[in-house]
């Protein structure tokens, strides 16, 4: 039946089925918090396409695990999609740390290559997988109504650990991002801080890509930070607003998808886009008045 012809679900139905929806809603909200926070660095460092490329690499990792499992090249017990996503995400992050000027290329070029390689690989590997095709689709475009228990728990642990570490290192990371040369002169461990930032983005993207899909991951790592930057000119406020907005997009997008019967990933991304558009309009109006 065409989804538009089915009756609109009610709030009571949603509440009655809360046990079913609880994990994906919380997962979406936590992913929004974590990626929204990290997104502030991603946007300010002008590396927006890093998260897109890394999430595609994660998708490739998931596809490869299914493929290797299907052909029995790895023991079934080891065929964990998140592990594949993590390995490929970290490899991609390592690839992006190469100095592109040594190859007479630009950073954007490397990102484009990483994105296309991940996408092409995921599509090609996905074509050979018949049994897990639904899971591949979920990774690329967002899951259906459920989230695996392992993904749910991994998202909680990753969010708590990475947010804690980021709050501790915030002053060093902001200084290094803003003025790397001065940070080096003042003896800050710039290389270690940059490595930590890249690794934390890689891990966050890999874990959340399998849980909520590459589309939502890219959206959460860019749009809430852009929205917060358009709304506030204070760094500390931006660091509070961006994860909050990410949380709203993660949870609100799920509700939007449920009540209007749209795919979750598309709904979360759409909601994040709407919030960003409104914030940009408000920034323009404030500047004019």
């Amino acid at each position: 039946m065409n989804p538009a012809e089915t009756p609109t679900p009610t709030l009571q139905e949603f509440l009655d089925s809360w046990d079913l929806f609880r994990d994906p809603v919380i997962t979406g909200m936590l992913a929004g918090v974590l990626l929204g926070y990290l997104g502030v660095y991603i946007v300010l460092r002008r590396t927006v396409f890093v998260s897109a490329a890394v999430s595609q690499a994660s998708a490739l990792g998931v596809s490869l695990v299914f493929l290797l499992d299907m052909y029995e090249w790895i023991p079934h017990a080891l065929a964990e999609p998140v592990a594949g996503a993590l390995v490929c995400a970290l490899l991609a992050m390592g690839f992006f740390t190469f100095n592109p000027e040594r190859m007479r290329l630009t950073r954007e070029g490397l990102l484009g290559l990483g994105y296309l390689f991940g996408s092409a690989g995921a599509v090609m590997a996905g074509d050979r997988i018949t049994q897990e095709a639904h899971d591949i689709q979920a990774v690329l475009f967002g899951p259906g109504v459920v989230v695996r228990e392992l993904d749910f728990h991994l998202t909680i642990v990753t969010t708590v650990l990475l947010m804690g570490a980021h709050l501790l290192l915030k002053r060093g990371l902001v200084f290094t991002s803003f003025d790397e040369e001065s940070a080096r002169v003042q003896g800050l461990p710039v290389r270690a801080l940059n490595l930590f930032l890249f690794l934390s983005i890689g891990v966050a993207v890999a874990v959340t890509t399998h849980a909520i899909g590459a589309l939502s991951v890219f959206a959460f790592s860019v749009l809430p930070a852009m929205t917060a930057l358009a709304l506030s000119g204070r760094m500390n406020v931006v660091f509070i607003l961006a994860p909050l907005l990410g949380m709203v997009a993660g949870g609100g997008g799920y509700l939007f998808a449920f009540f209007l019967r749209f795919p979750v990933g598309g709904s979360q991304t759409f909601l994040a886009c709407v919030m960003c558009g409104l914030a940009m309009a408000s920034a323009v109006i404030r500047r004019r008045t």
Partner: protein
Amino acid sequence: MSIQDPNVLIDCRGLQVGYDGVAMLPPIEVDVHRGVFCVVVGRNGSGKSTWFKTVLGLIPPVSGQVMHAPGLKVAYIPQRLHYDPIYPLTAINVVRMGALNGFNFWGSSGLDYDELKLAMDAVDVWKLRDQSFRSLSEGQKQRVLFARALVSRPEVAFMDEPTSAMDVVAEREMLSLVDRVRRDRKMAVVMVTHELSVAAEYAEQVIFVDRTSRTVLAGTPREVLGHEQFARLYGQEKAHELLVELDHFQRRKAGGPHT
């Protein structure tokens, strides 16, 4: 080897600077003394920034040594190009960064509010503390960065073309301010500039570098500006003009008659 003279902050011995093992300039022998105003001059692309960054430890030397006095406190004020104006930071956020060094960036800054005010007052930017850094004029931004440098109470401040994006009035104000703060705090300043008049008016020590002719001259302003190689590169007329300027400023500093 270490520095023996307590008045020497930085000692460059046979220092050759360059990239990928290729030297841009001949070896340089220079000492930077406590409280001195040292100006590094040269044309665009002459190698002055490379020398400067090598001394700061940002680029490895091709050969020779750069020695810093034990526990030397160094501050750096970057060129406009090296910081990103899109960051939503207030002036006070930027100044607070000056207190970070090594691994002491965990938790709170530990920076005394009075210390912060003192540094910002010294360069007259306390009133700008809550303003967005990106909305400030170039002159104000450089003052804020100078306040950031002062927060760590440095013994030497390295300034890379601090007046490059300023108009003439802002440039004069900034240079006078740097000179005044340097004297008040007995702090050495090493400033890279392509403005030769800065060497005549403020410098006590001048380093002139020129990559094309592979020239390095270091000494007092009179020694460098009056050197025949300097005159050959910039022309006799310009060199003479600078020496006249130098005489004028030296008489003025000594309280003698103005010309």
